């Protein structure tokens, strides 16, 4: 049982959910999701957000039935010791991979936009101790980083006002130009930007009065959805669909035209500030990964986290070049997608196992 002192207030579910979702993806998702729905893709985000709401609801449904238990112990009680441990390991490997992908994609942006000559291994030597410093403390610190990761980069939203001057509303006209199927197809792509909510099943016991935190979790997801829709909307009226196809990071392009009397090239500041957006991702994923392994295999969390950080370090060094980064990130999103659709399965399994147990007793 988690001590009262280590728990965080229910409101923090808001920050935990949205900080886990928002990552480097905000820079690139707009040119990915329009594959099917084109300029109507912003509706796909809303659809994806709704689906995530459903998944959060399901997760709470399952978690509320197990008082104060997390992913590892729930799986142990549903599937038994071995299969439960196996699924926990899959989850933690996935989170590890996700952290590596987030970090590597961020470093790629650094390489492309800021420091083409940067030595990845040296830069990582500065970042890895920071993450260890965060997760070596209590969970409270991870939540604190999530909180700052939402509040502080919020100022970046004001940078989206500048592109409006150069935008053309006809770029997204006419609305509903695409079929429902296309919008749904795009919304599947949009769902990649919402990954990371699965961590809820790990930190659930750390939330005080966790039952009440559900509404805040939904608000968190709502916030992410709104933020994505706003970014998407601004991107689509600024770029035409022909242009955006060839842009890898459209959001950076939006920042690029910010002009202040003392400041040009706002994207440098944007990318640096984005570090505070990916930091919660990294901290939360690596914390979640080590916590799950710790719960499943009973190895001290300190050693697991050092091991995981080393693993992330080497993955980031060895994955070099856009092709490889895309490969790894595709692989991790596939597992992520699998886990996303595994949540409803868990829901069903949970009810079956409860029925079975009730019948047995």
């Amino acid at each position: 049982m988690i001590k009262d002192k280590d728990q965080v207030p229910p409101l923090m579910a808001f920050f935990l959910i949205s900080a886990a979702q928002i990552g480097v993806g905000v820079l690139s998702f707009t040119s990915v999701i329009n594959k099917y729905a084109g300029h109507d893709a912003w509706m796909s985000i809303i659809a994806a957000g709704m689906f995530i709401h459903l998944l959060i609801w399901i997760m709470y449904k399952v978690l509320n039935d197990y008082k104060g238990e997390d992913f590892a112990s729930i799986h142990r009680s549903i599937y038994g010791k071995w299969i439960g441990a196996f699924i926990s390991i899959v989850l933690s490997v996935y989170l590890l991979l996700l952290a590596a992908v987030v970090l590597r994609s961020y470093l790629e942006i650094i390489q492309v936009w800021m420091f083409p000559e940067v030595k990845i291994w040296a830069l990582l030597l500065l970042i890895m101790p920071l993450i260890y410093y965060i997760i070596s403390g209590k969970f409270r610190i991870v939540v604190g980083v999530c909180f700052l990761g939402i509040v502080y980069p919020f100022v970046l939203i004001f940078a989206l006002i500048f592109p409006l001057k150069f935008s053309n509303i006809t770029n997204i006209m006419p609305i509903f130009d695409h079929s429902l199927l296309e919008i749904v197809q795009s919304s599947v792509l949009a769902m990649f930007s919402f990954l990371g909510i699965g961590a809820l099943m790990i930190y659930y016991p750390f939330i005080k009065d966790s039952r009440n935190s559900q509404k805040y979790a939904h608000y968190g997801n709502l916030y992410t959805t709104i933020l994505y829709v706003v970014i998407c909307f601004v991107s689509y009226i600024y770029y035409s669909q022909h242009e955006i196809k060839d842009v890898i990071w459209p959001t950076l392009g939006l920042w690029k035209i910010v002009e202040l009397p003392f400041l040009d090239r706002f994207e440098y500041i944007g990318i640096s500030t984005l570090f505070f957006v990916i930091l919660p991702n990294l901290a939360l994923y690596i914390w979640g990964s080590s916590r799950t392994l710790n719960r499943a295999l009973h190895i001290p969390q300190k050693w697991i986290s050092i091991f995981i950080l080393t693993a992330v370090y080497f993955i980031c060094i060895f994955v070099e070049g856009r092709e490889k980064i895309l490969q790894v990130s595709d692989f991790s999103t596939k597992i992520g997608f699998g886990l996303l659709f595994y949540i409803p399965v868990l829901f069903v399994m949970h009810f079956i196992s409860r029925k079975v147990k009730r019948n047995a007793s």
Partner: protein
Amino acid sequence: MKKKLTQKKRQREFEELFNDLKNSDDFIDYQLEHDSIPLCIGYFNSAIDNKKIEKFVLPYVQQSDYSDLKEIENVIPITNTYLTNDSNEIRRKLLDGFLFIHMGESDQQYLLIPVPLFKTRQITSPEVEFSVVGPKEAFVESIDTNLNLVRKRLNIPELTIKKLKVGTITKTKVAVVSIKGIADTNNVETVIQRIQDMEMDQVIDSSFIQQKIADNTNSPFPQLLDTERPDRIAAILAEGKVAIFVDNSPHVLIGPTTLVEFFSAFEDYFLNWTIASAFRLIRLFAVFFSILVTPLYVAVLTHHFELIPKELLGTLVSSRSQVPFPPILEAIILELTIELLREAGARLPTKVGQTIGIVGGIVIGTASVEAGLTSNVLLILVALGALGSFTTPVYQMGNTIRLIRFPLLIFAHVYGLLGVSICIAYIMVHLLKLTSLGRPFFEPVFPLRLKDLKDAFIRLPFDMQNKRPFMVRSEKVLRETSKNKHDSS
């Protein structure tokens, strides 16, 4: 038989005591005879007030009639005298400024009379936390005077003072003060426990205790607030916090505290809330500016020229065109010069210090720009940054702010703006981890407590300050005024 033995033992004890005492040259004892009664008087010259002996002890001993110590005790016009025959007691009391009178060889009783010397400086106006409006009293080095200054502001029976002695050699008096029924007993107990657990031979100043009982003793951030204003202590006690008074120290410690409290001057409460809030915001801005300005300069000029608009870049480049150093070297040279000036100014007497400031600030600054060693743009920025760091009302936090600029500079040089971000992240996480007496230091930002924001970055009017800060876990959250007392009844 037994009585005789104990008497002998006692005599030996006293002989030992006197031999010990005479080791120190300031121990004085002399014999005198009055009406053929032999008297022995002894004291530590450095602990007692000679005038008191001449005025209140000697005249009565020499002139009045008496036959034993009891009668002397009755004639001497000093309170708190008493008779004892315990040698340890005598030893301790002599050090506290008592004198003893002993009668004859046969009598085993000693009369102890308190004649301690109190010499403290006058109560002056606060120098570190000066305010134009508001009370002008500051603490002095005597703990009793300091306690009195607070007691006179909080004239209520609930004000509790717990006295402790710390330091195996110095035996310094420490008082833990709180208001019963308002302060959280946990906080009070934590403070007392930590002070008792301190293992130290000397406690010279309250800063010793601050360093010793802080939650994280390696952090550059002070985790207990220190103040020299009795009015601030009174206000903070009423908020439900705990104060630590240390004898011989004009600074009183306060805990638990938060980061933003270090940027609030007590003057903020004397001004109208709109003005006070504006000043507080200016101060916070000054602090951020002071920390970030040189690192940003280094980051931008080393890595991100493109960030600067064309017109501004021209000014910058022309000012830097003569400078042979990279920005980081330039910045570090100037920052160190400023630190040097400050340090020299602080160590020198006031008048010389001012001269050094003028010589340093104007002459060295202008000369180094003219010589082409630094750019004048950076000179302006560094000077402004230094100015900004002096706006922090608490001296110790000012030191921290000056120090954390240097790691930021190095990060900025290596990885530009990204480096600045990483370094800020380190500082933020450190602040998140810090606690003050076990309470989060970064509150009310994180953990987010909207209600405590009423007195953090801005100070809202007193009407809205009707609740004590949540972070002190006061036993009475609502501030009791006659109005809401009426409401609740």
